[in-house]
């Protein structure tokens, strides 16, 4: 068992306090670029992503973990990252602030809105309610990992075709939940079952009707097997 020590965080660093992550690599000018670069590996069936693809390794931190930190490995969209994180670093914040994968959104930050939904080992979770250390060794698929270059995932394409968003803030979470449910044999294929399975993703613009239509349309395009 490894144990982290007290963080001894310097005073007067509100960003660290707020997110639990030191935003040392944050660069707004690169907004979106790193997300595209990271999406070199993708899949239509997320839980096979890692097994099927060769992983490339990225060392995000060269040095040994600092006080209160721990070295973890996260495979994100097929890419292996090795990085040092403090115990209170939330998975969502690590992805956004350290790995620059800002496609996963922070909404309520309390597991109530679903904007931060992503897949861990193929299963949809709220990434705002996980510490990164919990996911040492896990395979994570974010919205950036769905498309293959310029080819959108069928669910992304269906959202586009059906105008299944307005402001777009909840959309990546909606799409990740949709991908998960289309691959889940325990969730019924009828509209009511889809609506129930999607109820953890709140859309304040009210695009629910089009979201449902998009998911059912993607189901058809994905071969009728899901």
């Amino acid at each position, binding site marked *: *068992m490894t144990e982290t020590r007290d963080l001894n965080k310097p005073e007067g660093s509100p960003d660290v306090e707020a997110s639990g992550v030191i935003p040392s690599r944050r660069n707004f000018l690169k907004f979106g670029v790193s997300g595209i670069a990271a999406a070199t590996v993708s899949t239509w069936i997320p839980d096979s992503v890692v097994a099927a693809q060769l992983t490339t390794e990225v060392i995000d931190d060269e040095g040994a973990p600092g006080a209160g930190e721990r070295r973890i490995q996260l495979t994100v969209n097929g890419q292996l990252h090795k990085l040092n994180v403090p*115990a*209170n670093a*939330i998975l969502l914040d690590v992805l956004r602030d350290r790995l620059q994968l800002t496609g996963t959104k922070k909404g309520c*930050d*309390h597991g109530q809105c679903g904007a931060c939904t992503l897949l861990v080992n193929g299963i*949809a979770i*709220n990434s705002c309610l*996980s510490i990164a250390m*919990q996911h040492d060794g896990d395979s994570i698929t974010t919205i950036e990992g769905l498309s293959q270059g310029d080819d959108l995932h069928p669910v992304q394409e269906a959202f586009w075709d059906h105008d299944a968003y307005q402001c777009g803030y909840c959309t990546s979470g909606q799409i990740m939940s949709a991908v998960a449910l289309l691959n889940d044999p325990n969730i019924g294929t009828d509209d009511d079952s889809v609506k129930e399975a999607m109820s953890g993703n709140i859309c304040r613009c009210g695009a629910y009707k089009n979201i449902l239509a998009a998911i059912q349309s993607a189901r058809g395009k994905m071969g009728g097997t899901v």
Partner: protein
Amino acid sequence: MRTFDYARAQSPAQAVSSHAASGQPFYLAGGTTLLDLVKLDVMQPDRLVDINHLTLKHIEPLADGRVRIGALVSNTELASHPLIRERYTVLSQAILAGASTQLRNKATTGGNVMQRVRCNYFRDGVSPCNKRQPGSGCAAIGGHNRSVHAVLGTSEHCIATHPSDMCVAMAAIGAQVTVQGPSGVREIAFSDFHMLPGQTPWVEHALQPHELITHVTLDAPLANSRSAYLKLRDRESYQFALASSAVIVVMDGQRITDARIALGGVGTKPWRALEAERALVGQKVDIALFNQVGERAMQGARAYEHNAFKISLGQQVVTRNLRDLTA
């Protein structure tokens, strides 16, 4: 969010002992309650012991007809397991009636048993709340006490409902909670696990310091029974219960020969309605009887300013469930 130490346990014994030197134990399983409340600074751990690597992820039928559930079995896995769907329909339905897909994927059996109340005065971090700050009072009494506040089992010190749906089904089925502590393993009857607020609302369960839930073992299902969970809420999905009922009945023709009834959304703990069950057993299916049973289930209820409707809603959620289940 505050900082804390992190330790990863490889065995229940190690999890328990790793707390021995520190203060109040905080075991991290799914984290859907714990990390939410740490972010709000309502729970203030010095250290989290991550138990996710423990081998407590199995659902096993026992020779005596019971089913043993590992504490780390997710809510989704439990609800979708064939043994649970077939033998404990009410439990599968109750779990699926709670939270969202993402939360159920992550939330665990042990964690669901341990989830904290949803009272806003508990969560806001500043209002008087005897659970959060013993002796500070209860802002919910005389405050906004509509949706997540109880009419059964309340005290002048706390009126928050227990929020779990899963636990309501377990209360009806009957279960044993297996816990491991510094002095070994013991079992706690599910009905004794959650405490009424009484004079000490900050004491929420029967766990001793450092004890860790390792399993929940369901009683054998009643032979030839049928069961259902009915949940009434402000919206049809992803909402806590205003009133819910878990009902199990055994019928011989039109006569009810055995029954279990538990309620959610109305009590300060998962609420087993033993008197209501007694009123049902031996009787013939009849809507007038079901109305009486519903009233019996809510006997002793006390309304607060905004939740008086829960008394009749609680009656109806029992009556309707019985009517539909015996139809």
